[in-house]
């Protein structure tokens, strides 16, 4: 059941280049990937998300009268 649950969400394609002695990947592609394609951009987003609860509160849009 565990394997079925994991496998149910595993859909995509892998491209290899075959050579004498083995095969090297060239592409791993999923429709709804969990993998990162740009680590630096992800680090910025991840840090922003972690820091958000500690950011200073924004000034109220309408000042109290």
């Amino acid at each position, binding site marked *: 059941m565990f394997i079925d649950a994991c496998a149910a*969400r*595993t859909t995509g394609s892998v491209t290899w280049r075959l050579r004498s002695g*083995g095969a090297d*990947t*060239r592409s791993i592609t999923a429709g709804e990937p969990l*993998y990162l*394609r740009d680590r630096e951009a992800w680090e*910025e987003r991840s840090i922003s998300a972690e*820091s958000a609860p500690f950011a200073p509160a924004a000034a109220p849009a309408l000042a109290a009268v």
Partner: protein
Amino acid sequence: MRSPLIRSFSQLDSLDPDLPVVTLFSGGLDSSYLLLRLRRMGIREVHAVSVDIGEDESSGYKRQVAEALGATIHILHRRAEFAEQYVAPAIAAQAVYLGIHPVSSTLSRPLIAHSAVELARALGAQAVLHTANRSQNTLRRLNGALTLLGYEGVFGSPYDLDPVTRDDKLAELRDAGIDLLAGRIVSGDSNLWCREFESGILDDPELHEVPEEMYTWSRPTALPGDTDTLTVTFEQGLPVALDGERLPLTRLIERLNRRVGAYGLGRYSGLEHLDHGEKVLEIRESPPPGSCSAATGTSRAPAWTPNSSARSGIWSRSGHARPSKAAGSANCGSPHRCSSMPAPPAPPGP
């Protein structure tokens, strides 16, 4: 109460300029840039530590960069210790990361952390700093190891919350007269058991290619039709001899790297998992594990020939895992098969 984990450059302002600081140093961009920042802060005594566990980079290069940035370099030779106390238990356990590739940094990080803490304690250093960022599991491995070792000072990586762009690091180092590092196109981690590549031109799983010249051991040199027969002798789950010649484990692994790698065997490609389910592409070459592990699970009289399989390593085990001093997170103890095939795309995260 424990000191807070160092996660940003601004936290380094709390360091005492008069007390020593130990940094892990690979000679790469991140660790060189950290030395530059520490020099600018006026830390008088910075000790850059490189733990030699079989890396193929020259210590001369590291010494040149570290000293140019005002640090004292310490090259700590730990190859034999790494092989005998960290790799050996992994061989006996046939430790494989989620069925994808033989564990490597899982083994090396605890030893590197331990070496750094030993030095820091001897020097009375106030901090042990490293340069892993949050898309590298080394961040968790080093911080976890330093925590478990009970290091008394502060520790962590300022890049966790403060990533600095590659261009900015290069420019600032150039301004400081350091222009030795522009050639690197990926991040690398290498020891005598495994060489690993990630980031840079290998960021994108959907489009990646390791330049052939980056491989050291597994670049095929055997001609079509060539064969080679080798015999690895095991005693109590550990390889002790190659073709009947008894060898220390470091020498045996070195020879297997060349002999097996000559046939283009021992490459691994897969997605490693970060702590919230994200995956990152990592590519490895590690020729020996197929020959060190195929036998232990299948026979009491092991023999393995590189040409017996087109796959780069077949792992199967039926023995009992030995406890690993190093591998708290290693996948010891489960039956695995591992080949050069990558991890399935996007399995669910934890």
